C-alpha cells in the first residue's frame, strides 16, 4: 500500500516520554501520601498545634537531621519528587481547563520542576559545609 508510506512520520513510530513523567508523578504521589502529613503535623504546624516545643525544633537538631546522608533522602522524597508530582498534575490540569496545551506548557511545567529541584539540591549541598 504505497499510499500509506507517503508520510514519513507515520512509518517511524514515535516513542512517548509519558512513562518518565508518569513514573515521577506516581513516585511523588506515594511520597506525598507518606511524608507530607508527618512533616506538616510535626514541623510546619508542630508549634502552633502544641505537638512539639520550639526546643525540639532547635537549629542544632534540625541541622543534624537534614544535613545527614539520610536527610538527603527525605529532601528528595519530601521536595523533589512532590515537585514532579505537582507539576505533572498542573500540566494536565492546564489542558483540562483549556488554559494551555502543547509543547510550551509542557516545557514550562516540567522545566520548572527540574529547575526547582536543582535549587533544592543546591541548597542542600551548600548547607553541608
Amino acid at each position, binding site marked *: 500500500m504505497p499510499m500509506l508510506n507517503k508520510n514519513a512520520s507515520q512509518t517511524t513510530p514515535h516513542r512517548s516520554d509519558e512513562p518518565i513523567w508518569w513514573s515521577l508523578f506516581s513516585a511523588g504521589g506515594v511520597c506525598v501520601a507518606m511524608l*507530607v502529613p508527618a512533616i506538616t503535623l510535626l514541623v510546619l504546624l508542630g508549634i502552633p498545634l502544641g505537638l512539639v516545643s520550639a526546643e525540639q525544633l532547635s537549629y542544632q537538631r534540625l541541622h543534624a537531621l537534614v544535613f545527614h546522608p539520610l536527610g538527603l533522602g527525605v529532601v528528595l522524597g519530601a521536595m523533589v519528587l512532590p515537585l514532579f508530582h505537582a507539576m505533572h498534575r498542573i500540566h494536565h490540569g492546564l489542558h483540562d481547563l483549556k488554559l494551555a496545551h502543547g509543547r510550551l506548557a509542557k516545557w514550562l511545567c516540567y522545566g520548572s520542576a527540574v529547575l526547582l529541584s536543582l535549587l533544592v539540591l543546591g541548597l542542600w549541598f551548600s548547607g553541608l559545609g
Partner: protein
Amino acid sequence: MSRKPYQPPMPASWWLKHPAYRFYMLREATVLPLLFFVASLLYGLYALGQGESSWLQYLSWLQQPWVIALNSLALVASLFHAWTFFVLFPQVMPLRLGSRTLPAWLMVSAQWAGVLLVILALWWLLGGMNADA
C-alpha cells in the same frame, strides 16, 4: 471522506457538570497547597543553611496566621490525596499470597498504618521520648 466530522463543543467548565468530574478536579487541585508545602520547606532549607538566627526567624514565620492556614490546607489536601492514592493501590496492583488475593481493606489500612508509623518515627527523631512538652 469530504464530510466534516461532528465535534461536540467542550467548554472549559465541563468539569462542573458532574459530581465525578468535580471530585477529579478537587483531587488534581490538591497539588496547589502541596506547592505551598514545598515552598515552606524550601525556605526552611535555606534558613537552616544560613545559620541559627535565620532558623529562628523561620520558626516565627511558620507561626503567622496565614502560613498556619495554608499549611493546614496542605495537611488536609495531603490526607485527601493519600486516601485517593491508597484506595487505588489494591486496584492497580493486587497482591497475591499463594492463591489468595489480599483483601483491599487490608492493603488500604496497611498504608494508613505506614502514614502513622512515619509520624511516630519523626516524633521520635524530634526527641519526642525525652521532651516533656
